[in-house]
């Protein structure tokens, strides 16, 4: 029987550990990026349509001050460095710096949420306008994405501190970092398409 013959063959060499979490995270991050691509595409199409008809995109009395958006963008870029630092520190089995880098990354995440929340209070943009609908939906969805990325990074931090990941196997932390970078990529597009070009 085929099964007996197969089992009689010499066993395979021990396989390298499949990077299941990394592949799964890449697919999930890609899916989330596509959701934002659709939303931002719809935003740009709607804005172009309004402007082509001679209208103004933001309702009268509303504005998007650039400073909070720029601060949020700069903070996100800083978090990219600290996340890279965390991955590097775990790779070198440098526990104190891994703690520090992951802690700073989480802190920067909170700072971005704070900056965007502050921006909301400054815009005076009603959600009942077309511009308000799109802007609050997209930036709100991004905050949800950011919270998810922070939770993922926190879980992987605890696992790393618990000894699950170390210099030779840091898949979980690399996966969390990739998810984080996807978040930064999305925010970069939001920053330019919504906050800068308005």
């Amino acid at each position, binding site marked *: 029987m085929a099964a007996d013959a197969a089992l009689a063959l010499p066993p395979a060499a021990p396989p390298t550990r499949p990077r299941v979490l990394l592949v799964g995270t890449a697919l999930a991050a890609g899916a989330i990026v596509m959701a934002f691509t659709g939303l931002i595409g719809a935003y740009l199409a709607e804005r172009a349509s309004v402007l082509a008809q001679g209208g103004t995109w933001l309702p009268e009395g509303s504005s998007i001050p650039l400073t909070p958006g720029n601060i949020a963008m700069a903070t996100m870029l800083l978090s990219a460095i600290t996340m890279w630092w965390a991955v590097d520190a775990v790779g070198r089995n440098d526990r104190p710096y891994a703690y520090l880098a992951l802690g700073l990354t989480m802190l920067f995440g909170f700072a971005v949420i704070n900056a965007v929340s502050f921006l909301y209070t400054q815009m005076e943009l009603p959600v*009942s306008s077309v511009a308000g609908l799109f802007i609050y939906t997209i930036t709100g969805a991004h905050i949800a994405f950011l919270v998810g990325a922070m939770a993922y990074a926190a879980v992987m931090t605890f696992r790393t501190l618990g000894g699950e990941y170390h210099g030779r196997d840091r898949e979980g932390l690399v996966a969390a970092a990739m998810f984080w970078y996807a978040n930064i990529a999305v925010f970069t597009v939001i920053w330019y398409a919504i906050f800068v070009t308005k």
Partner: protein
Amino acid sequence: MAVTETPPETVEAASAAATSAPRSQPSGLAAVLGSGDHKTIGRLYVLSSLLLGAGVLVLGLLFGVEAVKPETWDVFSSAHAMQLFTLLRVATVFLLAFPLVIGVALVVVPLQVGAHTVAFPRAAAASYWGWLLGSILLIASYIADGGPFGTSAQGIDLWIAALGLVVVSLLVAAVSLATTVLALRAPGMTLDRTPLYAWSVAVAAVMWLVTLPVMVGFLVLMYVDHRHAGVSLGSSSSLYGALSWIFRNPQIYVVAIPVLGFVGDVVSTSAGTRSKGRGLAHTAIGIFGTVSFGAFLAVPSTHAVESVLMIVLALVAVVPVLAIGALAADSVRRGKIKVNPGLAYALASLVALLLGTVAGAAGTIPGVLEVPEGALASDSIFFLGVTHAVVMAAVIAAVGGVTWWATKIGRRQAATGPALLAPAILLIGTVVMVIPDLVSGIVGDGIETAADPTGGIAGLNAAALVGVAIAGLGLLVAAVSLLPLLKRSEDDLDADPWGNGQTLEWLTASPPSAGNFDAELAVVTSAEPLFDLREEK
């Protein structure tokens, strides 16, 4: 020791405590509800989607009756017809076709690639329960007078949230499936040695992951709009229109990508020969997946259907289907064909998909369709026919998958007689259902729109009703053929009931054990490892 490592003695002590503690294995309902076994989850998906599919069929028949004499509103009130029409289309795709395809894939793909489990088994289980809850809430939203064209604000909110839950749940299953193929293949099984069905599921899952999230994004936008603004997509009448791109070509092709892999695997196994053009088959499936990217239609454009891109995508989509057909014919020519139900299903699904893709290509060529002044060609009822053909191809292949892999999915072989008859009936039903819509779109003299439950020429609608009835009969015969799967066999089932199995799922016991393979597999050295074993003997 590395500074980030836990001392080994701590791990050992914890492990010993965990393994020595008495653990009772759940049984009965608890074993099903709490299962992370991909086979159990897949079976649940298959059973649930077929049950919901029966409801879809009844609704389709009622709409068929309505469309024969639309002006009399014999079945539905004019106020609720559009609402229920959207239920029919949403349920056909998201409550029947997608979960049925995913269910079969969840059982078969890990076995085919030699994995002991699906990737992220608990996420796969969560995807099923999330999908089931979302499906129930979706139906409840219509009962509460919600959904597109509904009048209850809470019902509309519930519809948006429920559909979002359904789609996100299916996407979680897609992540599990794609990761299984990409990261959990047996040693030696390179991507070019991946069985065609597993490869097609991976391509499909990736395409779902790059297109359906766009729909989720729009659902979020609709939800916010409906609750707070009502200025864009969130009005009751515009909900369905904003999502209509999901239900037409090329996007609808994503649900039928596994058809090509199913045909490739079944035909070469039935012919008892190696597939000569495996690389070509992989490429064809990849191209079909790529051209099914329809998310760019999510942002409305008045000239999208006439655009060169649409025409090119639609024309190119035919080529991979023909290529798989040609490779199947080559396998038949070189091998010694054994007629079996799986082969019948494979041929029926391929013909249905060919009908859908050829019609889809023809419909995009300017001037083919009769379009009233001011209407868009993309709204023609012609494309409803295309959608029906493609969805039926996916359903036929999925039911065929349950039949072909019956001893892996169920407890016995399917009943051969009805299983041979069902695909023929399903194919006839599909053709009779689809052709009238295509003809209505070409020669129609009214507003023959796909978004109208009463669209189409009345006489042709009567023929389409007959087609739906025949397809329903086909599904009934298929269900009868699958009844033995539910009954435990008293005899030991053969691991490879077809005798010609080539891929790893035929190596494991029927039904497979909890860990799929009871021993470590040898290194795979070709795309047909079981063929290699037979040749070595």
